[in-house]
Every structure is written in structure tokens, then in C-alpha cells.
């Protein structure tokens, strides 16, 4: 780990595998919170800035960014082994593969029950209605469905933290609700193991270090990609012993579509907006912060393009997944499904604790020092080339300037300034080589190789 980069205690699901990383800057330039630098020729993630959106992972050409998961064998520690799956999990499989084959396959793999998360959306809706009825703060209220967005707001939009709807996401509500149901049915609580099958990295991080919750409601996380491979293999080789059904019965069309773009906003009152893609969300929130009266009541914000269908761990094409789920939903609306709309819900059980801002933008706790730093930063921006080439190991000239004023980089790390300093004899070739090795690693110092 690099000493210049401060690490504090947030759990992240994304890890750079140094042996695989080729230090190519793809991840660094797509990161929406400028959380990545290149040091010693490897990508390094700054923990306090990372929101676990997974963009780096999608951009990596050599699959060097791993998404951690629990050991699959962990499920066998329990007698009742529950796979908690979102609707996109089924939606990503090619149309010729039937849902009951997938459910059957999950049982082959060792699960005893399958719970479809989106069976609880009516309960989540009740909790939203209850929260919004009692909400006296500034509009719009913002959904807490997407964990990467919650984290983005914490680090980048501290003024909007109070707009977040204090209701747990469907995955948590489902885990809590069905665990209770099973306990009521006489299952030994110690023997219930609920494993969330995740389409994204942010969800893993939010389970391992929950925001607004004391402890997570699930016992483990399994990457969707891992299960997709296992299941497809079983199905293609006709090894699924028997088809299966989820414990939760059929899904309503509302449930099927909830995790997709407009899945929530379509069902909220007033002027509602749905925005997907973390850069789009950032752009919109910047605007929202600056305008006094937005007249917007509800915001559904999702980090991934096409929401959960575009999750980093979804193997199927996101547009096809959306199309399949849409046609499934249009069929479902005609058939009978069980909903939990009429069920009384326990507000305490499904409410989130206060979500705290932890701004990554503050340059210094001492304001006069921070002012000095901004002045220096503005001066640096005047001399940096402004082409955001990333050759300094920072994603943009502005981030390099920030790194310099924070004492984490030097002006000579900029290859343009470096040439200037060498010409002016303020920097020796040897010193420049040392800098370049520090950023790009010894193997990539072309100047020393050509000698």
C-alpha cells in the first residue's frame, strides 16, 4: 500500500489485484469520485472516496479489479439455506431458459429455499408512504434503494443527506420479513442462513459495513456472476434434477420492474424523476444543490446504466435483461400473485438510522489553511496543461493539483512540467526517472530502458 494515500475504516468490496493490474489508467479515468491513483505501476483505491459503484471493474481490460464475496461453502453452515435473489437475476438468462430451471438449479447447488426479493416491494412502498407522510424536510425525497448512490451523496453531496428516505432497501426488508416468517413457522433461528445474490459491488460493501443499520440482515453474499456460471453449466448439461419454485410465489409486475429504471418513480406521488448512471446522477445533484425550488417530490437515483440490469455482476446484456423483464411483467399483471400490500409493517424494523455526511471535498479542517490550499490549487491549475492525460498518476489536472496541495504529489509529476524543469535545470534526469518509477513502476521507465 502506498503511504501517500490515506486509508480509513470503510469496507469496500472492490480490490485491485496487483499481480494482474497493468497500470493502464482506464479505471482511474472512469471513477466518478476520483478515488483511484496509479502508484508503482498499479491502481490504488482511496478508500474514503470510493463509493463501490463498480465502474472501475467494468472498465478494467485485464479483470484486475476483484469483487470480494463470501465462500460459497459457507451456506452449508446452515440447515435452512436461502438464496435471496433480485428479479434481474432471472432476467439475465436467455429467454429459452425457464425460471423454474434456474430455481431448480439453485437447489441442486445446495440452497433449500429461494426468496425473490421483489416480492416485498409493496411493503417497501408502504414504508415509503409512511415516511413521506411524516416527512417535513425539504423536497425532493431521495430513494435509498441504490447503495452506491447513498454513498455518493455521503461523500459528495453532504447537503442532500437529509433528503434520503429512511427506509431499508427491498433486499433487507425481504431478509428481515422472511426470517421472521420462518421463525414463526418453527424453524430454529440459528439454522437460517440467508445469502444475498448480488448484482453489484456496492451492495456487498453495504452489507459488510452497513450505512444507517447496526448490523446487516443477511448472513452472506454470493456474486451473481459466480452463480450464473454454475447454473448455466448445470442447465446446459441437463443436470438440473427437478424444476423448482421460489418460496415467495409469483412476482407482481411492480415487483418485477422495481429494480429497473423508473421501477420506483412510477409508483410515487407528485413530480417524480428517475435517473440512472452515476455521472448523470452527479450532474443532476450538482444542479439540485444550486436551485432553491426544484418542485420535484421524489428522486429515484441508480448508479448503473439501466439500473440493476446494468450491475457489474450481471452477465447478460442489460438491454435484453430489461426487455425480458418488461415482457414478463406484462404477462404477470394478468395472473394472480401474492402481494404483501395489506400486511401491517413494523416501522422500526424497516427504518434506517440517520445517514451521516462524510464529505471528501474538504481540503483542511482549519479554514484558513483550506483557503491557502485553494489559492495554491488555483495557481497550479494555471500552469498545469489541462489536458487530463493522467500520466501523473492522477485522473485529471485538477485532481493532481488537489493531490499536490494535500502533500500527496509534486508538480514535477506532471510530464509537461517535468520537461520544463529538466530544461531549466531545476530537475535532473535521475530525479525525473525516480518520479516516473514511483508512478509507473521500474518496468515502465522507458527513459532508463533506452539507455
Amino acid at each position, binding site marked *: 500500500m502506498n503511504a501517500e494515500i490515506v486509508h480509513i475504516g470503510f469496507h469496500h468490496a472492490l480490490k485491485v489485484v496487483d499481480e494482474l493490474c497493468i497500470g493502464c489508467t482506464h479505471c482511474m479515468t472512469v471513477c466518478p469520485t476520483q478515488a483511484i491513483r496509479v502508484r508503482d505501476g498499479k491502481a490504488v483505491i482511496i478508500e474514503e472516496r470510493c463509493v463501490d459503484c463498480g465502474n472501475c471493474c467494468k472498465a478494467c481490460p485485464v479483470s484486475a479489479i476483484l469483487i470480494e464475496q463470501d465462500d460459497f461453502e459457507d451456506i452449508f453452515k446452515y440447515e435452512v439455506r436461502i438464496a435471496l435473489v433480485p428479479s434481474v437475476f432471472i432476467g439475465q438468462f436467455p429467454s429459452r431458459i425457464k425460471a423454474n430451471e434456474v430455481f431448480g438449479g439453485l437447489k441442486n447447488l445446495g440452497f433449500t429455499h429461494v426468496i425473490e426479493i421483489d416480492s416485498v416491494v409493496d411493503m417497501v412502498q408502504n414504508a415509503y408512504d409512511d415516511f413521506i407522510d411524516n416527512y417535513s424536510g425539504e423536497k425532493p425525497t431521495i430513494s435509498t434503494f441504490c447503495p452506491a448512490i447513498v454513498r455518493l451523496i455521503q461523500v459528495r453531496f453532504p*447537503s442532500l443527506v437529509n433528503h434520503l428516505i429512511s427506509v431499508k432497501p427491498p433486499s433487507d426488508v425481504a431478509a428481515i420479513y422472511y426470517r421472521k416468517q420462518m421463525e414463526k413457522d418453527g424453524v430454529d433461528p440459528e439454522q437460517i442462513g440467508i445469502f444475498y445474490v448480488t448484482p453489484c459491488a456496492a451492495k456487498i460493501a453495504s452489507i459488510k459495513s452497513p450505512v444507517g443499520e447496526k448490523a446487516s440482515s443477511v448472513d452472506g453474499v454470493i456474486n451473481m456472476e459466480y452463480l450464473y456460471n454454475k447454473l448455466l453449466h448445470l442447465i446446459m448439461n441437463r443436470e438440473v434434477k427437478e424444476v423448482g419454485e421460489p418460496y415467495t410465489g409469483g412476482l407482481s409486475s411492480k415487483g418485477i420492474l422495481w429494480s429497473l429504471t423508473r421501477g420506483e418513480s412510477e409508483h410515487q406521488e407528485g413530480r417524480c424523476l428517475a435517473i440512472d448512471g452515476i455521472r448523470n446522477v452527479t450532474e443532476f445533484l450538482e444542479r439540485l444543490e444550486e436551485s432553491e425550488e426544484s418542485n420535484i417530490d421524489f428522486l429515484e437515483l441508480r448508479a448503473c446504466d439501466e439500473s440493476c440490469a446494468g450491475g457489474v455482476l450481471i452477465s447478460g446484456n442489460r438491454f435484453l435483461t430489461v426487455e425480458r423483464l418488461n415482457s414478463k411483467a406484462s404477462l404477470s399483471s394478468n395472473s394472480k400473485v401474492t402481494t404483501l400490500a395489506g400486511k401491517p409493517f413494523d416501522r422500526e424494523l424497516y427504518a434506517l438510522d440517520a445517514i451521516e455526511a462524510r464529505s471528501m471535498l474538504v481540503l483542511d479542517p482549519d479554514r*484558513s489553511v483550506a*483557503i491557502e490550499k485553494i489559492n495554491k490549487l488555483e495557481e497550479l491549475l494555471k500552469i498545469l496543461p489541462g489536458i487530463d492525460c493522467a500520466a501523473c498518476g492522477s485522473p485529471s489536472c485538477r485532481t493532481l493539483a488537489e493531490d499536490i496541495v494535500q502533500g500527496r504529489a509534486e508538480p514535477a509529476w506532471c510530464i509537461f512540467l517535468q520537461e520544463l524543469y529538466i530544461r531549466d535545470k531545476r530537475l535532473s534526469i535521475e530525479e525525473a526517472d525516480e518520479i516516473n518509477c514511483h508512478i509507473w513502476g521500474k518496468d515502465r521507465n522507458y527513459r532508463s530502458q533506452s539507455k
Partner: protein
Amino acid sequence: MRLQFHIEGGDFVNAGKASSTVKRALKQLDVSAKKIKRVIIALYETEVNVVAHANGGDIDVLIDSDNIRLTVTDSGPGIPDIEQAMTEGFSTASKSVREMGFGAGMGLANIKRNSDSFHIESVPGKGTTVKIINELKE
């Protein structure tokens, strides 16, 4: 620290550039969200006023540990009756400006409401200067 901006008259597309830049600086200085919002609303409304009514103007922003001072000067038509212009709902904005979502007649009153200290001077035919001071300390 000092930030300076030039505002082009009639350029609604770029109105808000100054407030965005000031907002970023205030976030970097760890100013509370509430105080940032007041400054940004006051500055944004002022920017829009200059774009809508004047041929252009300049913004001068001075920030120290305790205060932010905004001075906005324009070479517009000036305001003949400041008291009337300060009334909520009073607007001289043209139809085309209103169609863009501006000119609801909230401008000056709103700017004053979001300022800790508000001072306006205007000479008809010459221009208007608005001085705003907001405290940044809790």
C-alpha cells in the same frame, strides 16, 4: 481568496457558472450545507438578474475564514425604484425570459432573504451594484 467572473448579458446558458465554482470552494472549506445554500441562492439569483436585465457585469468574490463578500456590478439600465423592485412578485422580465423559467419576480427579495448583509446601489441609465456579505462561521 478571490474569485472573479464576467457575466455576459443574455447568456442564460452559462448563468450559474459562478455559483457552481463558489459552491465547490465553499465545500472545500467545509462550510455547512445550510450556509452554502444561502450563498448560492443569493449569487445565482444575482447572476440571473444581470443576465436578464443588464448588458453584462462582473462578479467579485472575496472569501476569508469568517465571511464571503460578493460584489456584483453591471452596466445595465439601473433600477428606478429599488423599493418596488424589492417587492416579491414584482418583475419587469420580458415574456421570452419568463418562458425560460426566469423572471418570476422573486429575485431581489430572495437575494436579500438569503444574505446576512445586503446593499444595493443603482443609477438609472448607468448600472447597479449589489454587495452581499454572508457569514461562514457557525
